[in-house]
């Protein structure tokens, strides 16, 4: 296949590659919802906070409006699916029973903390499950475009928008690069195809250490 992937698809594909082994994975709204189409690991079980474990893609003809994910998009059951109420679903999340959460973000700071629930002055009055996932999931992967639609920098020294949690995320996947977060510091570990280190530096305000495969630069 020689299909050119969009920026969002490229990010989703890279996140999917990260999901190895037997895992319970929660996918947020936006780019994370594209991840399943690149998953071919039968041991990944998708959890959605509105009350379902074990999620598959749905064919257009089989859509049931009462089977949806947290983004209210139609989904299907798998052979081992289960349903549960919202409190039980968040007990799974806060209680440390979800292995990986893949979330979108508005901004990330240089310690790996994210802002993804509010923009001051705008009518975005919703937090959903983001704060619960950040305190409870064992690993947090951010899947987001490197820049805003207006080409503004999202990986900043400090977030201007309110933080979602005091806990730093573990990994950031953008259409420019992959960063890992260790001890509240960012490490650039991969460049996305066709992107140069200079381009990442120009479009990232936060300090980061370059640690590309097979080399260790300053």
């Amino acid at each position, binding site marked *: 296949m020689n299909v050119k992937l969009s920026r969002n698809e490229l990010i989703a594909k890279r996140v999917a590659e990260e999901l190895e082994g037997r895992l319970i994975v929660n996918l947020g709204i936006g780019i994370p919802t594209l991840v399943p189409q690149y998953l071919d690991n039968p041991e990944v079980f998708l959890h959605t906070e509105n*009350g*379902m474990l074990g999620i598959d893609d749905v064919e257009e003809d089989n*859509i049931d409006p009462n089977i949806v994910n947290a983004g209210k998009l139609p989904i299907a059951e798998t052979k081992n699916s289960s349903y549960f*109420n919202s409190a039980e679903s968040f007990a799974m999340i*806060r209680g440390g029973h979800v292995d990986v959460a893949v979330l979108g973000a508005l901004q990330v700071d240089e310690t790996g903390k994210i802002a993804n629930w509010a923009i001051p002055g705008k009518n*975005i009055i919703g937090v*959903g499950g983001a704060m619960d996932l950040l305190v*409870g999931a064992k690993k947090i992967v951010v899947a987001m475009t490197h820049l805003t639609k207006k080409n503004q920098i999202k990986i900043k020294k400090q977030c201007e928008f*309110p*933080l979602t949690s005091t806990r730093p995320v573990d990994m950031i996947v953008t259409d420019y690069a992959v960063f890992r977060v260790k001890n509240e510091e960012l490490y650039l570990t991969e460049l996305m195809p066709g992107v140069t280190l200079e381009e990442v530096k120009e479009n990232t305000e936060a300090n980061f250490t370059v640690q590309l495969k097979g080399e260790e630069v300053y």
Partner: protein
Amino acid sequence: MSKIIKDVNQLLREQLTDGQTILVGGFGLIGAPLTLIEELSNIDVSDLSIVSNNLGEKGKGLGKVLNQGKISKGIGSYFTSNPDVGERYQKGEIELQLLPQGTLSESIRAGGAGIGGYFTKTSVGTDLAKGKDIRVIYGEEYVFEPAIKGDVAFIKAYKADQAGNLVYYKTARNFNPLMATAAKYVIAEVEHIVEDGELDPEEIVTPHLFVDAIVQSRYILTKEGVVPVEREIV
């Protein structure tokens, strides 16, 4: 003694008064008690506090009741799904209490279980924890959240028997079983009403002691949106 009520309008006129707190199930329109909400739009009440994940969608579900000016306070986790909520909030026409979804659901669970409140790590260090009590437990910071209770709960279930045992459907379950435990008067709207003995005791999610009244759904969510349905009441 059956709990089935045929005249929903009269039931709501009897049970609802100005200034009450109503718990309303659903995640958006999924699992929302659309018949009870529709009837609420026909009832003359005001100054309601609504506990629900969202205040419906624009002009739909609770969005319709919102636009009638009957709701003075919303307690939920994701008001973004209805842009009218933000507009009214900016104009000072509605008070909002935003809670993380896990905190919203656990607070309702606590309310129904006789728990006054609890400590959670969720929201510690964020704007949503401002002004709330913090306690260090086993070396980690937790924030205190009080329980949530309602005067009336509007529940959507799939099936009920005559006694009021409830069975839910797929992800339309969400907040409904929790809210069924946490209000003084609980009205369950269901798609199918069956005879006692037809539900397997193993499949019942909400036992009948939580339910005060059962009404037949007259509006259901389909692929084409919300549609009216006619069903014979047992």
